[in-house]
């Protein structure tokens, strides 16, 4: 494994360093007061599209996430009109799920939501034969259903088991969230809401349930609450060893 990874790491490291240098350059420009304003406005997608200066991410504080609470899961299902399907629970779509972890030795239990981690180096995009699986400039990983042929390679490639395949015809879609049979889908980070300047449905529901375990924001903006929290508290990426640089980070695991 490690032998195989070595050349890949080298290439990635080189590309990463190049990207970092570019990002640093942009960050410097963003420090100018006028540019900061433009950057803030760019958080809402307009006619000019989304900007690569923003990277949307999420911080999940597992110490605040309550065992048994599924507010985020239900909110996701309502927002994206995810229905259970016709009697085959193993086949129904799952954009977000709750996971309970227990450390055998100490008995410490942790509850957390798991969904598409919106990787900076998404393996689902690497393997997609048609280009349907792609990463938007602002870091949101999506499936373009117009191009998706339903081969499900991406489902195999995703280490987070974040993607689902739609097996049955659907009729009750949210007009903002087109979904249909024969395509792979996953958490879109509620892209239709984010582009309006709103927060993802799960984050909103978590705050409403007064757990406030989920924080959404721009990882690239050093003044955003999420960037400040990540800078100040120890957080981790799930399967950081894969070097996918997920946009979703966890605290307390």
């Amino acid at each position, binding site marked *: 494994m490690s032998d195989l990874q070595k050349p890949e790491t080298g290439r990635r490291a080189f590309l990463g360093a190049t990207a970092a240098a570019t990002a640093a350059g942009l960050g410097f420009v963003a420090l100018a007061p006028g540019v900061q304003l433009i950057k803030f406005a760019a958080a809402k*997608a*307009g*006619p*000019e*599209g*989304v900007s690569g200066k923003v990277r949307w991410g999420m911080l999940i504080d597992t110490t605040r996430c309550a065992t048994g609470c*599924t507010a985020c*899961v*239900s909110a*996701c*299902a*309502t*927002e*994206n*009109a*995810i*229905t*259970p399907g016709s009697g085959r629970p193993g086949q*129904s*779509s*799952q954009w977000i799920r709750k996971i309970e972890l227990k450390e055998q030795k100490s008995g410490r239990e942790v509850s957390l939501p798991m969904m598409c981690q919106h990787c900076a180096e998404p393996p689902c995009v690497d393997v997609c034969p048609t280009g349907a699986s*792609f990463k*938007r*400039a*602002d870091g949101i990983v*999506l499936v*373009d*259903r*117009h191009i998706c042929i339903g081969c499900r390679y991406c489902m195999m490639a995703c280490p987070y088991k974040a993607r689902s395949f739609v097996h049955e*015809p*659907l009729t*009750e*879609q*949210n*007009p*903002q969230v*087109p*979904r*249909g*049979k024969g*395509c792979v889908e996953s958490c879109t980070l509620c*892209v239709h809401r984010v*582009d*309006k300047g709103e927060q993802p449905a799960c984050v909103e529901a978590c705050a409403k349930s007064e757990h406030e375990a989920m924080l959404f924001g721009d990882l690239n903006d050093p003044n955003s609450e999420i960037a400040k929290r990540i800078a100040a508290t120890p957080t981790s990426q799930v399967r950081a060893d894969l070097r996918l640089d997920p946009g979703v980070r966890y605290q307390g695991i």
Partner: protein
Amino acid sequence: MLRRILNLVLLVLAALAMPAHAGAGVPKPVLTIENPGQCVAAPEVIRRTHMDLLKHQRDKTMHEGQRGAKGDKSASLNACIECHASKKTGSVLGSNENFCQGCHAYVAVKLDCFECHQARTGLIKAAGAKP
């Protein structure tokens, strides 16, 4: 000689075929446009190019995140549905009097959009259940 005969046969055939075609056509669809007014382009342009407009917009929105772009209100499918959905059913599908289905039935072109996109207006709240 052979060519002359062939020409004659063709002429006769054409003469026979013409009245038959002129008489028995599929009746043109009668569509009620619920929100009459300015569409994004003239009807004859829309009729021929709506699929191109939609496809252009879909790629811009999907991949580049362009929303509310010049022509988004026009070329976004949801904007089409908002204006053209039947007031009776709230949908662009359902019967041959409804906007999208009526015309597509007339020209016999399969309409794939609504296998994924919602054909009805208005956000459907609480459609989802716990998965």
